């Protein structure tokens, strides 16, 4: 049996592999995860601030969300985003099996879901703003209601917009045949970002709209 292991092979196979890092993911994937974690902390700050300001408001002064928001619409938005996460994961699965048209179709569906979500969010925002809700006040109760809502959902909406742009870039690259069974990390990474955006929305939906 020939000893084919070079020094590099031994390094790669060691516990702190260097070649595949101790976490067994590529550098690209690890960096995306670290970015997502930093983003999670940012959203955590926004949600923490919301919690603090709401708890600090005089008891009973916080507007009744089911009267102010169209909860049915927001529930549909949540559903759409969840579905878009499924189409995203199916897109990755497709290209991992070499299915280029599957990648294209499922990515397109994901983008459509994101656009639908943004459209509905814009509609809800417009309705609230015309009813007098702003960063400075609102006609229903505590002054902190407006700024906490708009900054948190606005920051999230910005993430969805960025995600739609990223997904479009990946779709264009996919149409140009840049991805294959072996080379599809870009799809995986944009998927991680998109699932993160969905995950944050799940929390925002619960804490800002329902609770």
């Amino acid at each position, binding site marked *: 049996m020939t000893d084919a292991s070079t020094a590099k092979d031994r390094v790669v196979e060691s516990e702190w592999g260097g070649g*595949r890092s*101790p*976490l*067994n*993911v*590529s550098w690209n994937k690890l960096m995306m*995860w*670290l970015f*997502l*974690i930093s983003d*999670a*902390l940012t959203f*955590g*700050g926004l*949600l*923490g*601030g919301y*919690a*603090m*300001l709401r*708890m*600090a*408001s*005089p*008891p009973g002064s916080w507007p009744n969300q*089911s009267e102010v928001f169209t*909860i049915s619409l927001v*529930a549909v938005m*949540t*559903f759409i985003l*969840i*579905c878009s*996460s*499924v189409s*995203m*994961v*199916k897109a990755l*699965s497709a290209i*991992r099996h070499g299915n280029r048209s599957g990648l294209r179709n499922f990515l397109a569906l994901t983008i459509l879901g994101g656009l639908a979500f943004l459209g509905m969010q814009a509609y809800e925002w417009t309705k609230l703003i015309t009813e007098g809700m702003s960063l400075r006040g609102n006609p229903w109760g505590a002054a902190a209601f407006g700024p906490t809502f708009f900054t948190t959902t606005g920051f999230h909406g910005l993430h969805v917009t960025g995600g739609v742009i990223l997904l479009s870039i990946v779709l264009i690259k996919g149409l140009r045949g840049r991805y294959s069974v*072996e080379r599809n990390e870009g799809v995986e990474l944009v*998927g*991680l970002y998109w*699932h*993160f955006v*969905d*995950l944050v929305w*799940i*929390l925002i*939906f*619960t*804490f800002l709209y*329902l*609770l």
Partner: protein
Amino acid sequence: MTDTQKETHREPRYMLVWLWLLILTVLELVAVYLRLPRGIFVTVLVILALMKAALVAAYFMHLRFERLTLVFIALAPLIFGVILLVGLMPDSLWRIVH
């Protein structure tokens, strides 16, 4: 030099995960409709939300099949979030009193 780390596990049943996410969302809306006492309502919704988040993280973001260290790294913001909330409590209570 090819990447030899292939998917050695069966692909998760994504539609099953989707179904559970749908069920949990409906349960959240039912909880709102039931007008439960505040304490129970908050607890139920937080648990349901965390379950949904865990499903997305585990199966869509693939954490179920990654090294445990990466899972812990990903969970770190949750711990910091709790610390943040606990740390802000005195400020909230002060604001109510004053």
